[in-house]
Protein backbone atom coordinates (compact mmCIF):
# COMPACT_ATOMS: atom_id res chain seq x y z
CA UNK A 1 0.00 0.00 0.00
CA UNK A 2 2.23 2.74 -1.31
CA UNK A 3 2.60 5.50 -3.82
CA UNK A 4 5.83 6.34 -5.64
CA UNK A 5 6.84 9.90 -6.42
CA UNK A 6 7.71 10.50 -10.08
CA UNK A 7 8.20 14.26 -9.80
CA UNK A 8 7.95 15.93 -6.37
CA UNK A 9 7.57 19.49 -7.71
CA UNK A 10 9.16 22.50 -6.07
CA UNK A 11 8.60 21.44 -2.48
CA UNK A 12 6.28 18.70 -1.34
CA UNK A 13 6.18 17.85 2.36
CA UNK A 14 3.89 15.79 4.56
CA UNK A 15 1.91 18.15 6.80
CA UNK A 16 -0.65 17.49 9.48
CA UNK A 17 -1.66 19.29 12.68
CA UNK A 18 0.65 21.90 14.23
CA UNK A 19 3.15 20.74 16.87
CA UNK A 20 1.43 22.08 19.97
CA UNK A 21 3.05 23.13 23.20
CA UNK A 22 6.77 23.04 22.33
CA UNK A 23 7.46 26.66 21.38
CA UNK A 24 9.15 27.25 24.74
CA UNK A 25 11.84 24.77 23.62
CA UNK A 26 12.31 26.61 20.35
CA UNK A 27 10.18 24.17 18.35
CA UNK A 28 7.99 25.91 15.74
CA UNK A 29 4.38 24.94 15.09
CA UNK A 30 4.75 23.65 11.51
CA UNK A 31 1.69 21.87 10.14
CA UNK A 32 -0.28 22.69 7.00
CA UNK A 33 0.31 26.29 5.90
CA UNK A 34 -3.38 26.31 4.88
CA UNK A 35 -5.00 23.98 7.45
CA UNK A 36 -8.50 24.72 6.17
CA UNK A 37 -7.66 23.31 2.73
CA UNK A 38 -6.03 20.26 4.38
CA UNK A 39 -9.19 19.74 6.42
CA UNK A 40 -11.37 19.97 3.30
CA UNK A 41 -9.34 17.25 1.57
CA UNK A 42 -9.50 14.95 4.61
CA UNK A 43 -13.23 15.60 5.02
CA UNK A 44 -14.03 14.15 1.62
CA UNK A 45 -12.23 10.93 2.53
CA UNK A 46 -13.60 10.52 6.04
CA UNK A 47 -10.16 11.09 7.64
CA UNK A 48 -9.59 13.06 10.85
CA UNK A 49 -9.56 16.75 9.84
CA UNK A 50 -5.80 17.21 10.09
CA UNK A 51 -4.64 13.70 9.14
CA UNK A 52 -1.25 13.84 7.40
CA UNK A 53 -1.37 14.56 3.68
CA UNK A 54 0.89 15.96 0.96
CA UNK A 55 1.38 19.72 0.83
CA UNK A 56 2.50 20.81 -2.66
CA UNK A 57 4.10 24.14 -3.47
CA UNK A 58 3.41 26.10 -6.67
CA UNK A 59 4.09 23.50 -9.32
CA UNK A 60 2.30 20.37 -8.25
CA UNK A 61 3.38 16.74 -8.21
CA UNK A 62 3.37 13.54 -10.27
CA UNK A 63 3.04 10.16 -8.59
CA UNK A 64 2.01 6.60 -9.35
CA UNK A 65 -0.14 4.43 -7.09
CA UNK A 66 0.87 0.87 -6.22
CA UNK A 67 -2.48 0.21 -4.60
CA UNK A 68 -6.15 1.04 -4.96
CA UNK A 69 -6.91 4.17 -3.00
CA UNK A 70 -9.29 7.13 -2.96
CA UNK A 71 -7.70 10.58 -3.05
CA UNK A 72 -8.81 14.20 -2.94
CA UNK A 73 -7.04 17.40 -4.01
CA UNK A 74 -7.81 20.83 -2.51
CA UNK A 75 -6.12 24.22 -2.08
CA UNK A 76 -4.68 26.35 -4.88
CA UNK A 77 -6.47 26.20 -8.21
CA UNK A 78 -4.56 23.76 -10.42
CA UNK A 79 -5.34 21.33 -13.19
CA UNK A 80 -5.38 17.66 -12.10
CA UNK A 81 -5.23 14.53 -14.23
CA UNK A 82 -5.58 10.79 -13.67
CA UNK A 83 -3.84 8.85 -16.47
CA UNK A 84 -4.12 12.00 -18.56
CA UNK A 85 -7.86 12.52 -17.94
CA UNK A 86 -8.74 15.77 -16.20
CA UNK A 87 -10.51 15.49 -12.86
CA UNK A 88 -11.95 18.05 -10.47
CA UNK A 89 -10.43 19.28 -7.28
CA UNK A 90 -12.69 18.96 -4.26
CA UNK A 91 -13.95 15.56 -5.30
CA UNK A 92 -13.17 11.98 -4.30
CA UNK A 93 -11.15 10.22 -7.02
CA UNK A 94 -10.70 6.44 -7.06
CA UNK A 95 -7.19 5.56 -8.13
CA UNK A 96 -6.17 2.06 -9.24
CA UNK A 97 -2.89 0.18 -9.22
CA UNK A 98 -0.36 1.78 -11.64
CA UNK A 99 -2.54 4.86 -12.19
CA UNK A 100 -0.59 8.08 -12.62
CA UNK A 101 -1.84 11.21 -10.85
CA UNK A 102 -0.66 14.68 -11.81
CA UNK A 103 -1.43 17.93 -10.03
CA UNK A 104 -0.35 20.78 -12.27
CA UNK A 105 1.02 24.23 -11.53
CA UNK A 106 -1.01 26.44 -9.20
CA UNK A 107 -2.87 29.21 -11.02
CA UNK A 108 -4.11 31.10 -7.99
CA UNK A 109 -2.86 30.40 -4.50
CA UNK A 110 0.34 28.50 -3.71
CA UNK A 111 -0.35 25.18 -2.01
CA UNK A 112 -2.34 22.11 -2.92
CA UNK A 113 -3.19 19.30 -0.53
CA UNK A 114 -3.43 15.71 -1.68
CA UNK A 115 -5.05 13.46 0.91
CA UNK A 116 -5.49 9.67 0.84
CA UNK A 117 -8.41 7.71 2.31
CA UNK A 118 -7.14 6.18 5.53
CA UNK A 119 -4.23 8.63 5.62
CA UNK A 120 -0.53 8.11 4.96
CA UNK A 121 2.30 6.93 7.18
CA UNK A 122 4.46 9.70 8.60
CA UNK A 123 7.07 10.02 11.30
CA UNK A 124 5.63 11.50 14.48
CA UNK A 125 7.86 13.77 16.58
CA UNK A 126 6.78 15.71 19.70
CA UNK A 127 3.15 14.88 19.06
CA UNK A 128 2.82 15.81 15.39
CA UNK A 129 3.52 14.16 12.05
CA UNK A 130 4.16 17.49 10.33
CA UNK A 131 7.49 17.99 8.57
CA UNK A 132 9.83 20.68 9.92
CA UNK A 133 12.65 20.71 7.39
CA UNK A 134 15.20 22.96 9.17
CA UNK A 135 15.54 20.43 12.02
CA UNK A 136 14.88 17.38 9.82
CA UNK A 137 11.99 15.83 11.73
CA UNK A 138 8.40 14.73 11.15
CA UNK A 139 6.79 13.69 7.88
CA UNK A 140 8.95 11.67 5.51
CA UNK A 141 12.48 11.59 7.01
CA UNK A 142 12.03 15.23 8.00
CA UNK A 143 12.52 16.45 4.45
CA UNK A 144 10.77 17.41 1.21
CA UNK A 145 9.88 14.47 -1.01
CA UNK A 146 12.25 13.45 -3.77
CA UNK A 147 11.88 11.53 -7.02
CA UNK A 148 11.39 7.79 -6.39
CA UNK A 149 10.42 8.22 -2.73
CA UNK A 150 7.91 5.58 -1.74
CA UNK A 151 5.24 6.76 0.68
CA UNK A 152 3.33 4.14 2.65
CA UNK A 153 -0.43 4.47 3.01
CA UNK A 154 -2.48 3.33 5.95
CA UNK A 155 -5.17 0.77 5.13
CA UNK A 156 -7.18 2.65 2.48
CA UNK A 157 -10.77 3.00 3.61
CA UNK A 158 -13.64 2.55 1.18
CA UNK A 159 -15.22 5.92 0.60
CA UNK A 160 -18.14 7.00 -1.52
CA UNK A 161 -17.89 9.54 -4.33
CA UNK A 162 -18.39 12.97 -2.85
CA UNK A 163 -17.70 16.62 -3.56
CA UNK A 164 -17.13 19.66 -1.40
CA UNK A 165 -20.30 21.79 -1.55
CA UNK A 166 -19.53 24.98 -3.48
CA UNK A 167 -20.21 27.12 -0.39
CA UNK A 168 -17.21 25.46 1.28
CA UNK A 169 -14.67 25.83 -1.50
CA UNK A 170 -12.16 28.46 -0.52
CA UNK A 171 -11.88 31.12 -3.22
CA UNK A 172 -8.32 31.48 -4.54
CA UNK A 173 -7.48 34.90 -5.86
CA UNK A 174 -4.61 37.35 -6.40
CA UNK A 175 -6.00 39.88 -3.85
CA UNK A 176 -6.43 39.13 -0.18
CA UNK A 177 -7.60 40.89 2.97
CA UNK A 178 -6.33 39.70 6.33
CA UNK A 179 -8.03 40.77 9.53
CA UNK A 180 -5.37 41.74 12.07
CA UNK A 181 -5.05 43.08 15.61
CA UNK A 182 -2.50 45.37 17.18
CA UNK A 183 0.46 43.71 18.81
CA UNK A 184 2.96 44.56 21.54
CA UNK A 185 4.97 47.19 19.68
CA UNK A 186 2.32 48.66 17.35
CA UNK A 187 2.80 52.01 19.08
CA UNK A 188 6.29 52.24 17.57
CA UNK A 189 4.66 52.87 14.19
CA UNK A 190 4.59 56.59 13.46
CA UNK A 191 1.30 56.11 11.60
CA UNK A 192 -0.63 52.83 12.08
CA UNK A 193 -2.86 53.83 9.12
CA UNK A 194 0.21 53.13 6.97
CA UNK A 195 -0.02 49.49 8.02
CA UNK A 196 -3.78 48.99 8.15
CA UNK A 197 -5.22 50.01 4.83
CA UNK A 198 -2.14 50.06 2.62
CA UNK A 199 -1.99 47.44 -0.12
CA UNK A 200 1.24 45.45 0.07
CA UNK A 201 2.67 43.03 -2.46
CA UNK A 202 3.83 39.55 -1.51
CA UNK A 203 7.56 39.45 -2.27
CA UNK A 204 9.51 36.52 -3.65
CA UNK A 205 11.05 36.07 -0.21
CA UNK A 206 8.20 33.84 0.88
CA UNK A 207 8.35 30.37 2.35
CA UNK A 208 6.86 28.36 5.19
CA UNK A 209 8.80 30.47 7.71
CA UNK A 210 7.45 33.81 6.59
CA UNK A 211 6.52 36.27 3.90
CA UNK A 212 8.15 39.63 3.25
CA UNK A 213 5.67 42.29 2.19
CA UNK A 214 6.81 44.84 -0.37
CA UNK A 215 5.29 48.25 -0.95
CA UNK A 216 5.14 51.07 1.56
CA UNK A 217 8.13 51.26 3.89
CA UNK A 218 6.67 51.86 7.31
CA UNK A 219 8.05 54.67 9.44
CA UNK A 220 8.99 53.00 12.70
CA UNK A 221 10.61 54.44 15.79
CA UNK A 222 13.87 52.78 16.66
CA UNK A 223 13.62 51.27 20.10
CA UNK A 224 17.01 50.49 21.52
CA UNK A 225 17.55 47.41 23.61
CA UNK A 226 14.43 45.52 22.65
CA UNK A 227 14.74 42.16 24.36
CA UNK A 228 14.08 38.97 22.42
CA UNK A 229 10.51 37.89 23.07
CA UNK A 230 7.93 35.40 21.86
CA UNK A 231 6.66 35.51 18.27
CA UNK A 232 3.91 33.41 16.65
CA UNK A 233 2.62 32.49 13.20
CA UNK A 234 0.59 35.41 11.87
CA UNK A 235 2.65 38.02 13.65
CA UNK A 236 3.91 40.94 11.60
CA UNK A 237 7.43 42.01 12.55
CA UNK A 238 8.99 45.21 11.34
CA UNK A 239 12.77 45.65 11.29
CA UNK A 240 14.23 49.15 11.16
CA UNK A 241 14.18 49.13 7.34
CA UNK A 242 10.38 49.44 7.59
CA UNK A 243 9.57 46.33 5.52
CA UNK A 244 6.96 44.22 7.28
CA UNK A 245 7.54 40.49 7.58
CA UNK A 246 4.62 38.14 8.13
CA UNK A 247 5.49 35.01 10.12
CA UNK A 248 4.31 31.64 8.80
CA UNK A 249 3.70 28.13 10.14
CA UNK A 250 7.43 27.33 10.47
CA UNK A 251 8.27 30.71 12.04
CA UNK A 252 10.94 30.91 14.70
CA UNK A 253 9.65 31.04 18.28
CA UNK A 254 11.36 34.22 19.49
CA UNK A 255 12.56 37.40 17.86
CA UNK A 256 13.98 40.82 18.57
CA UNK A 257 12.18 42.96 15.99
CA UNK A 258 9.13 45.06 16.89
CA UNK A 259 5.87 43.09 16.68
CA UNK A 260 3.51 45.53 14.99
CA UNK A 261 0.41 43.42 14.27
CA UNK A 262 -0.95 39.91 14.36
CA UNK A 263 -3.21 38.35 11.76
CA UNK A 264 -6.32 37.16 13.60
CA UNK A 265 -6.62 33.43 14.11
CA UNK A 266 -9.58 33.13 11.74
CA UNK A 267 -7.57 34.33 8.72
CA UNK A 268 -4.30 32.49 9.43
CA UNK A 269 -5.09 29.79 6.86
CA UNK A 270 -4.86 32.39 4.09
CA UNK A 271 -1.13 32.83 4.78
CA UNK A 272 -0.51 29.47 3.14
CA UNK A 273 -1.92 30.73 -0.17
CA UNK A 274 -0.23 34.14 -0.46
CA UNK A 275 1.72 34.10 -3.67
CA UNK A 276 4.58 36.25 -4.90
CA UNK A 277 2.95 39.27 -6.58
CA UNK A 278 -0.42 38.94 -4.79
CA UNK A 279 -1.91 42.09 -3.24
CA UNK A 280 -2.47 41.96 0.53
CA UNK A 281 -4.26 44.37 2.78
CA UNK A 282 -4.39 44.21 6.57
CA UNK A 283 -7.74 45.23 8.00
CA UNK A 284 -7.74 46.37 11.62
CA UNK A 285 -9.86 44.46 14.15
CA UNK A 286 -9.99 44.87 17.91
CA UNK A 287 -9.63 41.63 19.85
CA UNK A 288 -13.31 41.30 20.73
CA UNK A 289 -14.47 41.77 17.15
CA UNK A 290 -11.90 39.23 15.99
CA UNK A 291 -13.21 36.73 18.57
CA UNK A 292 -16.82 37.34 17.51
CA UNK A 293 -15.91 36.82 13.88
CA UNK A 294 -13.99 33.66 14.78
CA UNK A 295 -17.10 32.32 16.48
CA UNK A 296 -19.19 33.04 13.37
CA UNK A 297 -16.61 31.48 11.08
CA UNK A 298 -16.34 28.34 13.23
CA UNK A 299 -20.12 28.04 13.25
CA UNK A 300 -20.28 28.35 9.46
CA UNK A 301 -17.48 25.87 8.76
CA UNK A 302 -18.69 23.60 11.57
CA UNK A 303 -21.62 22.58 9.38
CA UNK A 304 -19.21 20.88 6.99
CA UNK A 305 -16.09 20.15 9.08
CA UNK A 306 -16.07 18.43 12.44
CA UNK A 307 -13.32 19.62 14.76
CA UNK A 308 -12.21 23.12 13.93
CA UNK A 309 -10.18 24.12 16.99
CA UNK A 310 -6.78 23.45 15.38
CA UNK A 311 -7.98 24.47 11.92
CA UNK A 312 -9.15 28.06 12.38
Amino acid sequence: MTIRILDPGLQTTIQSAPRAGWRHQGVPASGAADPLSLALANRLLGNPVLAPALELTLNGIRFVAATQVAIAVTGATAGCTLNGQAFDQHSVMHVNVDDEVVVGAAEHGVRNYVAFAGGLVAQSFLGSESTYMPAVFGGHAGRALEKDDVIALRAPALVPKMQTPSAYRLPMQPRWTLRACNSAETELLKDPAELFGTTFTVSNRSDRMGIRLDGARLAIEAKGGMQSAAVFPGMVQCPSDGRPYLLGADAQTTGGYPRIAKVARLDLHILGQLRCGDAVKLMFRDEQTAADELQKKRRYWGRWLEDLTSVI
Partner: protein
Amino acid sequence: MRSLGDDIVEVPVDTAADAQALAQRLRQQSSFLQVISGLSSVAVQYDPLEISRADAATIVQNTLLSKRAPASDVATEMQISIHYDGPELAAVCEMLSLSSEAFIEAHTAVVHTVDMLGFTPGFAYLSSMGKSYEVERLPSPRRLVDAGSIGFAGGRTGLYGLAGPGGWPLIGRTSGKLFDVEAKDPFLIQAGMPIRFVHAQ
Protein backbone atom coordinates in the same frame (compact mmCIF):
# COMPACT_ATOMS: atom_id res chain seq x y z
CA MET B 1 -0.16 43.10 30.58
CA ARG B 2 -0.15 43.78 26.86
CA SER B 3 -2.06 42.26 23.99
CA LEU B 4 -0.04 40.61 21.24
CA GLY B 5 -3.05 39.88 19.06
CA ASP B 6 -6.48 38.26 19.22
CA ASP B 7 -5.21 35.15 21.06
CA ILE B 8 -2.02 36.12 22.92
CA VAL B 9 -1.25 38.25 25.95
CA GLU B 10 2.19 39.04 27.32
CA VAL B 11 3.29 40.17 30.75
CA PRO B 12 6.59 41.97 31.35
CA VAL B 13 8.81 40.72 34.18
CA ASP B 14 12.19 41.87 35.50
CA THR B 15 14.56 39.07 34.66
CA ALA B 16 14.91 35.95 32.54
CA ALA B 17 14.78 33.87 35.74
CA ASP B 18 11.45 35.49 36.70
CA ALA B 19 10.13 34.77 33.21
CA GLN B 20 11.13 31.11 33.44
CA ALA B 21 9.61 30.68 36.90
CA LEU B 22 6.31 32.26 35.86
CA ALA B 23 6.21 30.29 32.60
CA GLN B 24 6.81 27.05 34.46
CA ARG B 25 3.94 27.72 36.87
CA LEU B 26 1.62 28.68 34.02
CA ARG B 27 2.53 25.53 32.10
CA GLN B 28 1.59 23.41 35.13
CA GLN B 29 -1.93 24.85 35.09
CA SER B 30 -2.47 23.78 31.47
CA SER B 31 -4.88 26.66 30.81
CA PHE B 32 -2.98 27.79 27.72
CA LEU B 33 -1.99 26.39 24.34
CA GLN B 34 1.52 27.79 24.55
CA VAL B 35 3.49 29.47 27.33
CA ILE B 36 6.73 31.10 26.22
CA SER B 37 9.27 32.97 28.28
CA GLY B 38 11.28 35.74 26.66
CA LEU B 39 14.30 37.48 28.19
CA SER B 40 12.03 39.80 30.18
CA SER B 41 8.46 38.70 29.40
CA VAL B 42 6.10 35.74 29.30
CA ALA B 43 3.57 35.26 26.51
CA VAL B 44 0.58 32.91 26.61
CA GLN B 45 -1.54 31.81 23.67
CA TYR B 46 -5.13 30.63 24.06
CA ASP B 47 -8.22 29.85 22.04
CA PRO B 48 -10.31 33.04 22.34
CA LEU B 49 -13.51 31.01 22.25
CA GLU B 50 -12.33 28.89 25.21
CA ILE B 51 -10.86 31.66 27.39
CA SER B 52 -11.68 35.34 27.13
CA ARG B 53 -8.85 37.84 26.96
CA ALA B 54 -9.84 39.21 30.37
CA ASP B 55 -9.75 35.71 31.89
CA ALA B 56 -6.40 34.94 30.29
CA ALA B 57 -4.98 38.16 31.72
CA THR B 58 -6.44 37.37 35.15
CA ILE B 59 -4.94 33.88 35.21
CA VAL B 60 -1.51 35.28 34.32
CA GLN B 61 -1.84 38.12 36.85
CA ASN B 62 -2.94 35.82 39.67
CA THR B 63 -0.14 33.38 38.94
CA LEU B 64 2.33 36.24 38.94
CA LEU B 65 1.09 37.42 42.33
CA SER B 66 0.63 33.99 43.88
CA LYS B 67 3.22 32.82 46.35
CA ARG B 68 6.12 31.43 44.45
CA ALA B 69 6.46 27.68 44.82
CA PRO B 70 9.73 26.59 46.34
CA ALA B 71 12.34 26.16 43.66
CA SER B 72 12.09 22.72 42.12
CA ASP B 73 15.16 20.57 41.82
CA VAL B 74 18.26 22.67 41.45
CA ALA B 75 19.55 22.14 37.95
CA THR B 76 22.91 20.49 37.82
CA GLU B 77 25.71 22.30 36.07
CA MET B 78 26.31 21.21 32.50
CA GLN B 79 29.77 21.29 31.01
CA ILE B 80 30.14 21.99 27.32
CA SER B 81 33.43 21.38 25.60
CA ILE B 82 34.24 24.20 23.18
CA HIS B 83 36.86 24.58 20.47
CA TYR B 84 37.69 28.29 20.42
CA ASP B 85 38.33 28.47 16.68
CA GLY B 86 35.40 30.52 15.38
CA PRO B 87 35.92 32.81 12.37
CA GLU B 88 35.16 35.92 14.49
CA LEU B 89 37.14 34.98 17.61
CA ALA B 90 39.93 37.37 16.66
CA ALA B 91 37.50 40.18 15.80
CA VAL B 92 35.58 39.72 19.06
CA CYS B 93 38.82 39.78 21.07
CA GLU B 94 39.95 42.88 19.22
CA MET B 95 36.66 44.68 19.96
CA LEU B 96 37.10 43.80 23.62
CA SER B 97 40.82 44.67 23.57
CA LEU B 98 41.67 41.25 24.94
CA SER B 99 44.10 38.59 23.85
CA SER B 100 42.36 35.39 22.80
CA GLU B 101 43.93 33.67 25.84
CA ALA B 102 42.42 36.29 28.15
CA PHE B 103 39.00 36.04 26.46
CA ILE B 104 39.00 32.24 26.68
CA GLU B 105 40.04 32.42 30.31
CA ALA B 106 37.19 34.82 31.11
CA HIS B 107 34.66 32.81 29.10
CA THR B 108 35.57 29.51 30.80
CA ALA B 109 35.85 31.05 34.27
CA VAL B 110 32.21 32.10 34.69
CA VAL B 111 29.11 29.97 35.14
CA HIS B 112 26.68 30.96 32.39
CA THR B 113 22.93 30.57 32.82
CA VAL B 114 20.44 29.64 30.09
CA ASP B 115 18.21 32.73 29.97
CA MET B 116 16.05 31.63 27.10
CA LEU B 117 15.54 28.86 24.59
CA GLY B 118 14.09 29.87 21.32
CA PHE B 119 14.41 30.96 17.75
CA THR B 120 14.85 27.37 16.53
CA PRO B 121 15.07 24.00 18.33
CA GLY B 122 18.13 23.83 20.55
CA PHE B 123 19.08 27.51 20.30
CA ALA B 124 20.06 28.79 23.75
CA TYR B 125 20.67 32.36 24.91
CA LEU B 126 23.13 32.34 27.80
CA SER B 127 23.27 35.13 30.35
CA SER B 128 25.32 38.21 29.83
CA MET B 129 28.96 38.35 30.94
CA GLY B 130 28.39 42.02 31.69
CA LYS B 131 28.66 45.42 30.05
CA SER B 132 32.40 45.22 29.51
CA TYR B 133 31.90 42.26 27.15
CA GLU B 134 29.37 43.74 24.75
CA VAL B 135 30.08 43.25 21.06
CA GLU B 136 27.84 43.90 18.07
CA ARG B 137 26.11 41.30 15.97
CA LEU B 138 27.32 40.82 12.39
CA PRO B 139 26.19 43.61 10.05
CA SER B 140 24.31 41.02 8.00
CA PRO B 141 23.51 37.48 9.07
CA ARG B 142 25.23 34.43 7.62
CA ARG B 143 23.04 32.27 5.43
CA LEU B 144 24.32 29.12 7.04
CA VAL B 145 25.80 28.52 10.46
CA ASP B 146 26.75 24.93 11.36
CA ALA B 147 24.97 23.11 14.20
CA GLY B 148 27.09 23.31 17.35
CA SER B 149 28.40 26.78 16.50
CA ILE B 150 28.89 29.12 19.45
CA GLY B 151 28.27 32.83 19.01
CA PHE B 152 29.03 35.81 21.18
CA ALA B 153 27.12 39.11 21.00
CA GLY B 154 25.88 41.74 23.42
CA GLY B 155 27.88 40.02 26.17
CA ARG B 156 25.74 36.89 25.65
CA THR B 157 26.75 33.51 24.37
CA GLY B 158 24.45 31.88 21.83
CA LEU B 159 24.43 28.15 21.12
CA TYR B 160 23.24 27.02 17.70
CA GLY B 161 21.49 23.67 18.08
CA LEU B 162 20.65 23.53 14.38
CA ALA B 163 22.33 24.51 11.16
CA GLY B 164 20.67 27.60 9.72
CA PRO B 165 20.99 31.34 9.24
CA GLY B 166 22.54 33.31 12.07
CA GLY B 167 23.81 36.78 12.92
CA TRP B 168 26.07 36.19 15.89
CA PRO B 169 29.85 36.52 15.56
CA LEU B 170 31.16 32.97 16.00
CA ILE B 171 33.83 32.31 18.61
CA GLY B 172 33.89 28.52 18.47
CA ARG B 173 32.00 25.27 18.24
CA THR B 174 31.12 22.22 20.23
CA SER B 175 30.97 18.70 18.88
CA GLY B 176 28.24 17.80 21.38
CA LYS B 177 24.68 17.60 20.04
CA LEU B 178 22.55 20.37 21.53
CA PHE B 179 19.42 19.06 19.83
CA ASP B 180 19.10 15.39 18.94
CA VAL B 181 16.00 14.06 17.21
CA GLU B 182 17.08 10.49 17.99
CA ALA B 183 17.53 11.01 21.74
CA LYS B 184 14.88 10.12 24.28
CA ASP B 185 15.02 13.72 25.46
CA PRO B 186 15.92 15.69 22.32
CA PHE B 187 16.78 18.86 24.27
CA LEU B 188 20.20 18.75 25.91
CA ILE B 189 19.70 22.21 27.35
CA GLN B 190 16.89 23.51 29.56
CA ALA B 191 16.02 27.05 30.55
CA GLY B 192 17.70 28.09 33.80
CA MET B 193 20.47 25.52 33.49
CA PRO B 194 23.93 26.62 34.69
CA ILE B 195 26.58 26.02 32.04
CA ARG B 196 30.34 26.03 32.19
CA PHE B 197 32.51 25.96 29.08
CA VAL B 198 35.56 23.77 29.00
CA HIS B 199 38.35 24.68 26.59
CA ALA B 200 38.87 21.74 24.22
CA GLN B 201 42.49 21.84 23.10
